[in-house]
């Protein structure tokens, strides 16, 4: 099925309001779905004989930054028997209120069991909580690590179990007299700044 047919399939089954937005002028077209109805749409896509998306390739959490105020989760589905792809997305506000400190997205780990670990990784790296997930723990970082490293406003903790975490002062502390190295934000060799200095 093509992307348009898949979109029509979802709209026919769940109504037009379930598709919040769609983007087709992309390298891969995608649909943005209503966050609350994500899991029922996914269940239908997985089970229906015409779509049969049996393989969840990738789950990606994206933080758009405090200015945009949103976070996204992208799901890359693939159907092995029909050989068709679909990228789905949900967009949630980046709320940091007292009663809901991190954004929430319904889980799809009961549909594709592979989402179990992928969602744990998204939770660990970006800080999106997956509702009804059976085992929402950190997976890559240590359990008592502070913050979610792939957030735009992430700041390293000063000490972790008595070990100094930020590495910026390493050269000065160790008596290195050369030029301080700064990795972040350095102009890359092919950027304009390097070729045409102001």
């Amino acid at each position, binding site marked *: 099925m093509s992307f348009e047919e898949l979109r029509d399939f979802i709209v026919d089954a769940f109504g037009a309001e379930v598709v919040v937005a769609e983007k087709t002028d*992309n*390298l*891969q077209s*995608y649909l943005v779905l209503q966050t609350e109805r994500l899991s029922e749409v996914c269940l239908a896509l997985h089970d229906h004989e015409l779509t049969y998306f*049996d*393989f*969840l*390739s*990738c789950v*990606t959490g*994206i*933080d758009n930054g405090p200015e945009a105020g949103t976070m996204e989760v*992208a799901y*890359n589905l693939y159907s*092995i028997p029909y*050989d068709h792809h679909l*990228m789905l997305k949900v967009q949630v506000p980046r709320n940091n209120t007292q009663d809901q400190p991190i954004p929430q997205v319904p889980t799809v780990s009961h549909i*594709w*069991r*592979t989402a*179990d*670990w*992928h969602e744990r*990784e998204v939770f660990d*790296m970006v800080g999106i909580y997956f509702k009804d997930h059976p*085992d929402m*723990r*950190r*997976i*890559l*970082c*240590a*359990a*008592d*690590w502070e913050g979610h*490293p*792939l957030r735009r406003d992430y700041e390293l903790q000063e000490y972790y*179990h008595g070990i100094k975490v930020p590495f910026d002062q390493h050269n000065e502390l160790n008596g290195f007299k050369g030029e301080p190295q700064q*990795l*972040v*934000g350095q102009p*890359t*060799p*092919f*950027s304009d700044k390097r070729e045409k200095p102001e």
Partner: protein
Amino acid sequence: MSSTLYKNYLLQSEPNKFSLDNLKDGEMIVNMGPQHPSTHGVLRLEVVTDGEIVTDVAPHIGYLHRCFEKHAEHMAYNQTIPYVDRMDYLAAMNSEHVWCMGVEKLLGITDQIPKRVEYIRVLVAELNRIASHFVAIGTYGIDIGAFTPFLWMLRDREHIQRLLEWVSGARMLYNYIWVGGLYYDLPIGFEKRCQEFIDYLQPKLDEIDTVLLENKIFIDRTANVGILPMDVAINYGCSGPMLRGSGLKYDLRRVDGYSVYPELEFEVPTGTGLVGSVGDCWDRNYVRALECRESVKIIQQCLDRLQGDHKRTPDFDPQAGCPKKLRTTGTQELYFRAETPRGELGYFFRTTDRSDMPFRCKGRSPCFSNLSVLHEIAKGCMVADLIAIVGSVDIVLGELDR
């Protein structure tokens, strides 16, 4: 256990999933790893055992987490290639190939890659695939007590490493495949030496079958152990030899047909349950051994074409197609996937307007999904079989933790 031990930092940073209170009568928690040779790196397994029977297992990963995704957000696409090498350090050429194809698709220059470059890429990637499978099968032999095949396979892998060192200057982490081209053309005389190696390798592959795969002890240890049904494998996102071992003919080189793979002839081997059941540990290793033979076929065809239609010419510059500016236009999203020795390696790119760095880059590691099925297939097996199962998954912790 005394309360002071519970307060130590290790239990704070990686607490157990299972608690002592919920154990049934006769059960105990056994910790395996993270420092243990049979876990192929720093993998910690928390095993609930009832005597010799494993009743549950929870893998703890992340000990080799090196922030690949964070680094990739602060680097231009071409600067990330060495980082990609270090993800799957046993098959660095394959990882580079996937990354470069993904970035070329972002930049829209997929069609402009010269055929000779494509054939050299496939040639080195398949050489690396053989090397990676040799480590997988060899260390698997060690896991369950066969030492000789490991030494034999590392001996043959050494030839591949020397060939690739001749090509790129490095033995394991190459940075050879560049976005839009290659670092260098093949060195003069490489085709001949590679041909000699292929002729040398084929009898050695038969040797592996004889000494390891058809060995009675090996079959007894691996047949009917860790059976992974096909539907479970798909649901858990397994790919590569894990999925093919379960009987599904699914290889992205054929399914997606990227690079020059549609022009090459090779079979996709699957597990058939020759000595046990479909999808057991023996099948997974048998698929790897058969894939080595298919890779030899591919290398042979690449060599023929590199000496025939796409012959070396004095004015051929493999760096000519490398774009000087890796600027992408507009906000684009792309998930690009391809087949590495361990399965489907994918990269999710999110670009921002006029930048040579990705806004977000996610690496979808095949080992990550392959290992997540462990608790499903290890339930009810013996503790010794757990080692056999973990080995047959063929994990590389560098890629699993990124």
